[in-house]
């Protein structure tokens, strides 16, 4: 390992803020992941690893989680980091601001700090995925001495974030770049290796590819260029890529099907859609072979995946037959593509074409991100593309889309399709609170088998967003959240 050097990474779009405790969108995570840390990290096998917590224990009954913190950790402003910060972050700050953590915190009875370097979480009941909640974007530890007693959202320090991570915030030229510098007081000896990181804002995908080719940036995070360029760039000399680093998120692409009204409310119609789609073509042509056709709600990268489910191969004849059975009258259905760039647009076009081939009339609806959000929140769609993260555990990232209690207007992230299956609801709940992995595995297998037959949504692809980088950049991705985690282990070969 060699120390020193500068790394240029694309960030797209420009993050609204770097205060990870308040804003958790992708670009913010990418940058702020260098600044803020949580108690644990997760390997690409999703196993927890030490971070701010040196070690931890979980009681047998699965109700008590005890974390022992690193000594000698300092905030970027030089103040010491202690367990009080952790308690403040989890119990006060994030409870108020982080929707994702709230799901886990609902199971928590108390958070206490017996001493400066120990934190204890006590749960009300066992919650299987709880150990997955200590990732940097779910539970970023924020400095108590800066935020306590202030209005978190308007605290002026949000613009100059203070964390414990390996890199410190230096400068943000809006619309152009964000500059981070090495944290010389980082608690791990010799780390980080890099001197500085520039996150570059380049709004046009084609320009981003050019930037990489020209050497202006050395790392392209997954999804920052269109798929067609991925193939071209990875074929270049001295360019490496990795599919790793998305295990925790396991982005799972599917299309919401409106289960409430119209033809999509009919199960057979939804099945017809599944048969009509040529998902291998979608994978090969639109995603350039990246990813994997999804078989059901749980990604094969996530724990508790089961492949023992009904299969939906590309079978137009079958689709036509199903449509005939239910007497489909040619009423057009509306497709709402995900407004995230050309790939998604092409994808919707391909689906439209597939559906029209079996006789389903399709209107493509167009909107920008805001309009898309609005339409989903208002359930104003028939078919709508999306992809969701699974956060390493079905109870965190999967069940939310299928539970009846999550049917509520106003959010694009709950049970938007309106699927209501009380039987399954019970099973989801049972699987979540079980402390025994084997039992969880069994219940999830049952769930998957049943739900896939119902087709509440049209599962499409387990997405893969390869990270592309110059081969002399070593170790850019070492954990399950990839570049969103800190680059403390990354170094440049001269």
């Amino acid at each position, binding site marked *: 390992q060699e120390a020193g050097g500068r790394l240029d990474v694309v960030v797209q779009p420009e993050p609204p803020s770097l205060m990870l405790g308040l804003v958790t969108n992708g670009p913010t995570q990418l940058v702020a992941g260098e600044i803020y840390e949580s108690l644990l990290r997760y390997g690409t096998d999703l196993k927890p690893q030490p971070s701010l917590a040196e070690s931890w224990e979980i009681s047998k009954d699965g109700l008590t989680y005890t974390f022992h913190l690193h000594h000698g950790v300092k905030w970027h402003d030089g103040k010491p980091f202690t367990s009080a910060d952790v308690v403040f972050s989890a119990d006060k700050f994030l409870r108020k601001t982080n929707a994702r953590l709230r799901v886990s915190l609902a199971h928590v009875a108390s958070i206490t700090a017996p001493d400066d370097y120990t934190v204890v979480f006590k749960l009300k009941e066992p919650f299987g995925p709880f150990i997955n909640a200590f990732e940097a974007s779910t539970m970023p530890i924020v400095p108590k001495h800066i935020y306590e007693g202030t209005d978190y959202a308007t605290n002026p320090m949000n613009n100059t974030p203070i964390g414990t991570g390996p890199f410190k915030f230096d400068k943000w030229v809006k619309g152009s770049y964000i500059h981070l510098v090495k944290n010389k007081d980082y608690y791990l000896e010799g780390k980080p290796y890099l001197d500085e990181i520039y996150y570059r804002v380049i709004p046009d995908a*084609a320009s981003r590819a050019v930037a990489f080719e020209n050497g202006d940036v050395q790392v392209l995070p997954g999804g920052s260029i*269109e798929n067609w*360029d991925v193939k071209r760039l990875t074929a270049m000399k001295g360019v490496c890529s990795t599919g790793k680093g998305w295990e925790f998120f396991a982005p799972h692409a599917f299309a919401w099907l409106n289960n409430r009204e119209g033809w999509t409310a009919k199960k057979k119609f939804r099945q017809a859609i599944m048969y009509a789609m040529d998902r291998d073509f979608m994978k090969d*042509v639109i995603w350039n072979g990246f990813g994997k056709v999804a078989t059901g709600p749980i990604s094969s990268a996530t724990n508790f995946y089961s492949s023992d489910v009904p299969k939906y191969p590309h079978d137009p004849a079958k689709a036509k037959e199903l449509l005939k059975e239910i007497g489909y009258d040619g009423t057009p259905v509306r497709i709402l593509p995900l407004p995230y760039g050309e790939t998604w*647009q*092409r994808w919707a*076009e391909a689906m439209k074409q597939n559906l029209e081939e079996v006789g389903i009339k399709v*209107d493509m609806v*167009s909107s*920008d991100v805001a309009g898309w959000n609005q339409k989903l929140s208002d359930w104003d769609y028939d078919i709508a593309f999306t992809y969701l993260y699974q956060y390493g555990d079905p109870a965190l990232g999967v069940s939310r889309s299928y539970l009846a209690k999550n049917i509520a207007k106003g959010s694009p992230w709950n049970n938007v399709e309106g699927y209501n299956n009380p039987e399954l609801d019970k099973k989801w709940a049972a699987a979540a609170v079980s402390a025994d992995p084997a039992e969880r595995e069994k219940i999830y297998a049952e769930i998957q088998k049943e739900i896939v037959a119902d087709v509440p949504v049209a599962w499409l692809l387990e997405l893969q967003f390869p990270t592309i980088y110059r081969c002399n950049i070593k170790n850019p991705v070492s954990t399950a959240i990839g570049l969103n985690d800190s680059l403390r282990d990354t170094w440049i070969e001269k």
Partner: protein
Amino acid sequence: MTGFLKRFARNRGALVGLLILLIVVVVAIFAPIIEPRSPWQMVQRPFLPPFTMSGLPLGTDTLGRDVASGLVHGARVSLIVGLVSTLVALLIGVPLGAVAGFYGGWIDEAAMRVTEFFQTIPSFALAIVLVAIMEPSLTSITLAIAIVSWPPVARLVRGEVMALRHREFVDAARLAGLSNRRILFGHILPNAMSPIIVMASLMVATAILLESSLSFLGLGDPNIMSWGYMIGAARTVIRSAWWLSFIPGVAILLTVLALNLIGEGLNDALNPRLARKGR
């Protein structure tokens, strides 16, 4: 009239322009006959270069759709957007400018404030916002383009009408007992036609370009094939398949060029001074 045609025909550029435009119009009208296949249909493997497979003279795009078919069907949309938005812009701008110029006073003042308002917001920005608000569709795009392009028409017409309304033939019409409306529409406007026609021909061109720019920013109508869409969709593969954006680019260029040439020809033909001097 015949003199006008003669003058127009003398301008070789204008004739070439007319020819190109005619071809485009014919292609647009008969698109379904020339290329019965839907331009969205995926017919072959993607990224076939042009002239490599018979039946697909221009190759295929990123999804394996026939580029030639896209080009033919795209002509329709581009022309419709260009013509209809220009028409709408004229329908807004001409009466407004005419009434403002003819009546003057507070009517003029009010009309010009409104016009100024629309001119003060950068037009492309306004178009973007309007399309985003109305959600992209052929109608909203056309309307948005029309809304941002009428102010110059209104100003032009107002200027012309103001210059014409004190001309003696207008006074003569007034003495003949004609109503204001007949004077304005029967006597003044016909005489302001030539600059309006010339401007309109340029506006059609600008509108086509605007539509393609909107498409580029992802604000096109996803249900219809247009040249702008084709370029926008192909720009991400510009490095590996440059021809995909080049072909529709050339189509736009030729059409706009044609309209420009025609506009210039009209300009010369309608301007007796230039026509006589032979430039």
